[in-house]
């Protein structure tokens, strides 16, 4: 019989807490580098100045241990749990939520979650619940990814149930329509996660998962890498620019995640991410 590794869920709470705080204070290196590179490439003087402010802002946040943005986001957790791990000491999801509660409270992060969304919209006061996507995988490790997802960019995202006859050209147009309609709202320069295939629930999750990739990385699949490059060039040709004030650097990266779909369907989701792409990763 294979040996089972025990892991106390308190370790999960501690890891989630740390990720919530560091994601919000320390802009990841890949994003910081993309902002510096974008500032050099930007043709608009106003746009260049915006990039300068964003780099300075990231420096202040890191130095003073304050959030990069006041919207410290919805805590989105992707968890991959090795099937040889036995979680002990409590409920997994409760442990994740406890980490979010502690991180957002002790880290002076804004609590931005409202319960009874359609009517009362009462603030839950500790930024819980988190959105948790859990997968069971081979092995004896637990991997966690934390994303602090701001509301302004999330609101500009779209789900597109396209007709198969529309093809790739139809998808490109739907992505461009989404970005164009969003304009200055999602705090460009943006990052775009595209989900293709699956069902309405799966395609949006793929689009979100795509945003976990590091800026500057190229898709391992050359076909998808070419699709990403085409979308990036076409988005940047829109002229929206940093903060929507006009410019050549609207988008820092496009990431696609794909899976097969029903013969009658061609689902595509666009998850819009602001320049404050706050994501952390830990292996337990």
């Amino acid at each position, binding site marked *: 019989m294979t040996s089972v590794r025990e892991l106390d869920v308190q370790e999960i709470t501690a890891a989630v807490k740390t990720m919530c705080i560091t994601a919000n204070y320390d802009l990841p290196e890949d994003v910081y580098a993309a902002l510096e590179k974008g500032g050099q490439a930007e*043709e*608009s003087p*106003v746009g260049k100045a*915006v990039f300068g*402010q*964003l780099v*300075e*802002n*990231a420096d*202040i*946040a890191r130095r*003073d*241990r*304050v*959030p*990069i*943005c*006041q*919207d*410290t986001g919805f805590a989105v957790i992707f968890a991959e749990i090795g099937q040889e791990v036995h979680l002990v000491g409590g409920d997994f999801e409760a442990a994740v939520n406890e980490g979010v509660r502690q991180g957002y409270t002790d880290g*002076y*992060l*804004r*609590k*931005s979650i409202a319960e009874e969304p359609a009517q009362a*919209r009462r*603030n839950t*006061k500790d930024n819980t619940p988190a959105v948790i996507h859990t997968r069971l995988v081979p092995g004896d490790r637990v991997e966690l990814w934390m994303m602090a997802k*701001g*509301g*302004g960019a999330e*609101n500009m995202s779209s789900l597109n149930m396209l007709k198969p006859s529309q093809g790739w050209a139809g998808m490109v147009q739907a992505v461009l329509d989404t970005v164009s309609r969003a*304009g*200055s*709202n999602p*705090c460009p320069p943006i990052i775009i996660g595209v989900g293709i295939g699956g069902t309405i629930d799966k395609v949006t999750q793929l689009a979100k998962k795509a945003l976990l990739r590091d800026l500057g990385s190229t898709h391992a699949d050359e076909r998808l890498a070419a699709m990403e490059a085409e979308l990036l060039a076409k988005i940047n*040709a*829109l*002229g*929206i*620019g940093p*903060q*929507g*004030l*006009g*410019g*050549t650097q609207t988008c820092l990266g496009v990431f696609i995640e794909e899976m097969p779909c029903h013969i009658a369907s061609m689902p595509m989701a666009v998850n819009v991410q*602001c*320049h*404050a792409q706050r994501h952390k990763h830990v292996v337990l």
Partner: protein
Amino acid sequence: MAAKKIVTPLTTEIVESLRAGDEVQISGVIYQARDAAHKRLVALIESGAPLPFELEGAVVYYMGPSPAKPGHVIGSAGPTTSGRMDAYAPTLMAHGLKGMIGKGLRTPEVKQAMIEHKAVYMAATGGAGALLAQRIVGNETIAYPELGAEAIARLEVKDFPAIVVNDCYGADLYEEGRKKYAKA
């Protein structure tokens, strides 16, 4: 281009001197208010009740800060998406509001109200909340503390940086800037 320094409360003359694309540095008092606060302000106006601050010449900042750490005036304090306040903005302008600071697109109705009532919409850099907080030197909650980050606060700012997006002549920097850099 050097930034224009402006001091609140704003007069019609100041508003008329501003053009889309102008960089400004704002000093004086501005009022923090976002979704829930706007809903309440408009309800007060409609019922004829007094408002928690003087609207004549006022500048509203669409913002909900993160909590202030001990010893800090305010937490991170960048703009939120202005479009969510579009339903309320024309009513506030009709009652004296002269300036709005936020980020993102406004509706034609809001832009029309800015022409009619001589008001200006300025964008601060979204996602630069740590940087912008350094220009906020005073912070006092004056209404709805129970709303947390959505409360109304009286903020004192010094050289707060913004750029004029919509002026009182109908110009729109978002449209003009984009046109300039769009490649067919």
